[in-house]
């Protein structure tokens, strides 16, 4: 349902994506790994038009993503995004954060949205934090609100850019367990992550990105347990045995 065809993206003269071909099928969890600066965030951000790209094509269920076209707003309501630094709206409570999109973008009925938003927050384990402002929540709680905010849009897919990288170690687990549940429910997800064990458990496919190119791809088991590319081997050694 998310498809990259020979996508090239440059910032000025610096080419960051150098011919990406990839596909995430409906109900699939795809994990994107690679060294810092290899273009993972950029690849994700191109999918919902937070960045534009110069050539090739990205499409969602056949519809081309063009960051400069009016259609981008509708595409974004179908492909939600979860950020490394949560980016919750600080002037709204957890519940208001989750309700914001459905009410003010999708124009849905406030009472129905409220009930649904409360249900989403319950599901991510925040039933008792609904009326808290983000500043009163821990990082792990904030990220779970952000996931609930994404789910409330009833998206076809969710993009997650290193959802646990900004968290203290003891909070990583609670966020990953929410993502595990989503994977079990066959939510389509494209996840940038350094959590190799997590990727092994949930990913249907893994892509290893190296300097803007896909250096290796395959099933989680193949790429993570039997990498063939020297760069992948080196990368995995570094993230699994940090110096």
């Amino acid at each position, binding site marked *: 349902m998310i498809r990259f065809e020979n996508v090239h993206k440059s910032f000025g003269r610096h080419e960051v994506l150098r011919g990406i071909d990839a596909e995430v099928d409906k109900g699939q969890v795809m994990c994107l790994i690679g060294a810092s600066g290899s273009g993972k965030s950029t690849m994700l951000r191109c999918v*919902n*038009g*937070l960045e534009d790209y110069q050539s090739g094509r990205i499409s969602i269920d056949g519809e081309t993503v063009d960051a400069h076209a009016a259609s981008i*707003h*509708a595409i*974004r*309501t179908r492909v*939600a*995004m979860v*950020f490394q*630094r949560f*980016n*919750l*709206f*600080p*002037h709204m409570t957890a519940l208001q954060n989750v309700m*914001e*999109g459905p009410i*003010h*973008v*999708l124009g849905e009925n406030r009472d129905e949205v409220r009930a649904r938003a409360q249900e989403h927050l319950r599901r991510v384990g925040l039933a008792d934090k609904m009326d808290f*402002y983000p*500043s009163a929540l821990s990082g792990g709680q904030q990220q779970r609100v952000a996931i609930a*905010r994404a789910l409330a*849009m009833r998206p076809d897919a969710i993009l997650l850019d290193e959802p646990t990288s900004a968290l203290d170690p003891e909070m990583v687990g609670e966020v990953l367990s929410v993502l595990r549940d989503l994977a079990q429910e066959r939510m389509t997800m494209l996840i940038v992550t350094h959590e190799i064990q997590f990727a092994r458990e949930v990913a249907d496919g893994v892509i290893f990105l190296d300097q803007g190119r896909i250096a290796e791809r395959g099933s989680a088991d193949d790429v993570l347990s039997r990498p063939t590319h020297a760069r992948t081997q080196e990368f995995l050694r570094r993230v699994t045995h940090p110096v």
Partner: protein
Amino acid sequence: MSPLHERIQEYLPLLVTGLWQTVAVTLLSLVLASTLGLVWALMRSSGTRWLSLPARYMVEFLRGIPILVVLFYIYFVMPELGLDLSAFQAGVVGLALTYSCYIGETFRGGIEAVDRGQVEAAKSIGMKHGKMMRRIVLPQAVRIALPPYGNNMVMLLKDSSQVSVISVAELTMQGKMLASSTFDNMTVFTMVAALYLCLTIPLNMLMRHVELRMGAAS
């Protein structure tokens, strides 16, 4: 000369009428300048060149002219071009135009200081620019811009004395007239200064109070 307290009683009514004029000029031009300033700031952060460039040139143009000259221009030149304003009206318009630039820059600073991640989060749920500004960016920008906006208010209040040059009968003007008819410069201008402080000190205290409350709420 009569005793000090008698002179104070004698001068006070005139100065208080001037004080009310000062308050009126300040409030009216503050409302106008804030509205116009918000327009400049929104144009400049619209991301559309044909909106942001005119606003930028307008701000740079107005900021490059001294208030006094703006006031003279509006009061003395505009009538020749067919726009006849009373001194009071000309004073309000001149102050508002000049201060719309400072206030606009203050608002723009607030808008730009809002975390980029907020804009991205708003976009990622499909929000369009206008709604994103209204619901996500401006509420946060207001908090950031509040302290400098408070400064703009106090500066505007003090600069309202400039409209005395086109003979608006506000506090400074009344003081000047009173001083030249009584030759009692010391008493008159001390009273004028004290009356300004009666406005600026509470205003400063109010701003600090609002800042604290807003800081506590976020």
